[in-house]
């Protein structure tokens, strides 16, 4: 891991359980890392959330997206634009960025680059 990535992991690992996907969306998801969802879902909870809010895969763990949805509404000091982004359709993960620093990728714009065919909702 490169130096910046090491620092990022040291900060975000213990606090958010950061998986170093290299394209951080914590600000959109109530500061809850979607990569800690066992299915690594980026766009909200799957249909398997249990009646008590437990994860389908790890029943004793609260659904990551349940937590994210709640925190995106209730977390203090979260800018309203971040709260509003909760429902945004996030693009597929770029698996090449795994292990990179998302801070560096943010500065370089690499975390926002999407495949040419990613034009959700657009009609020809």
């Amino acid at each position: 891991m490169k130096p910046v990535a090491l620092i990022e992991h040291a900060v975000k690992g213990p606090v958010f359980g950061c998986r170093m996907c290299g394209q951080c969306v914590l600000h959109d998801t109530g500061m809850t890392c979607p990569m800690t969802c066992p299915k690594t879902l980026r766009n909200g909870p799957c249909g398997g959330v249990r009646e008590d809010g437990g994860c389908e895969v790890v029943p004793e763990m609260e659904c990551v997206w349940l937590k994210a949805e709640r925190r995106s509404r209730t977390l203090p000091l979260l800018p309203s634009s971040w709260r509003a982004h909760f429902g945004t359709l996030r693009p597929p993960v770029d698996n090449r960025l795994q292990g990179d620093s998302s801070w560096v990728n943010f500065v370089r714009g690499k975390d926002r680059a999407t495949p040419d065919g990613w034009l959700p909702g657009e009609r020809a």
Partner: protein
Amino acid sequence: VSLRDLCETRRRPILTGEAPAFDTGGMDAFAAGIAELVGVVDAVNATDSPAAHAHASNVSVAIALRQLGVEPILQVVCRDKNRIALQADVVGAALHGVENVCCLTGDDVTAGDEPESRRVFDLDGPQLVAVVDGLAQGRYLSGRKLDPPPRLFVGAVENASAPPLDHRAERAAKKVAAGARFLQLQICFHPDRLETFVRELERLDVTSRAAVLPTIVLASGAKALTFMDRKVAGIDVPAATVARVTEASDDREAAYQLALEQARHALALPGVAGIHLTDFRHDGSVARLAADLGLDNDKETAPHAHRASLSI
């Protein structure tokens, strides 16, 4: 009449069904397995290794349905394949005339009999909707052109009954914004939750853009309801509902009556375009339910033997 046509015109309530998970025995056995659905439902789901158990593949079943003159709905889940394979499956199925594609995140591998499998989830459900809609617009996710574009009709699912309840309609709306034109809902044993969900979809102007099809399960009795409640993540069966069926003198009949009541309730909700049926009874209940709902007329489906000879 095609599913697309029914979803666009809403000329009558839509009825979709599901091919039982199929393994071996050849086309004759497959045809026997879906015989109860033929001529009763408008289209039939070809499931994608449901509950994470391997079965004859979604694409192969969708093609088999076409060969039998039945309109397939290709279910595609994100659990087992990456984005390359998923796109290849949809485009390959379209080669065989499979038009309807229902995009799901999918049960986890731990729900199945090979829980040690690698889970993929390279895409998630909403992303898959956008990718398949992109195929329909004539492009792979990479941007590479598809000329001519495959004829596809894209759908998705949503669970109206699983937490976070307040967010479910928004999530469904996200899939519709990404291109879904029909929504097959997860089985829901809480009529109040279904009502709230559909009302919210109406408010978000989703029901006019996508045909909402709540799933009604034809369960075989009290044991099946208890099983679903305990073993299927995302499905909660209220204790009173289980008790009502358990305490009936004929629990099999009580389970049918429960499904009939749920179907009537769902179809009466403004914004609901039809229902999806999951049948675990295999005793003619699908046709019985269609008749009891008054949905057994005006089906232009030809006898399957005749249509089969045309499509092969």
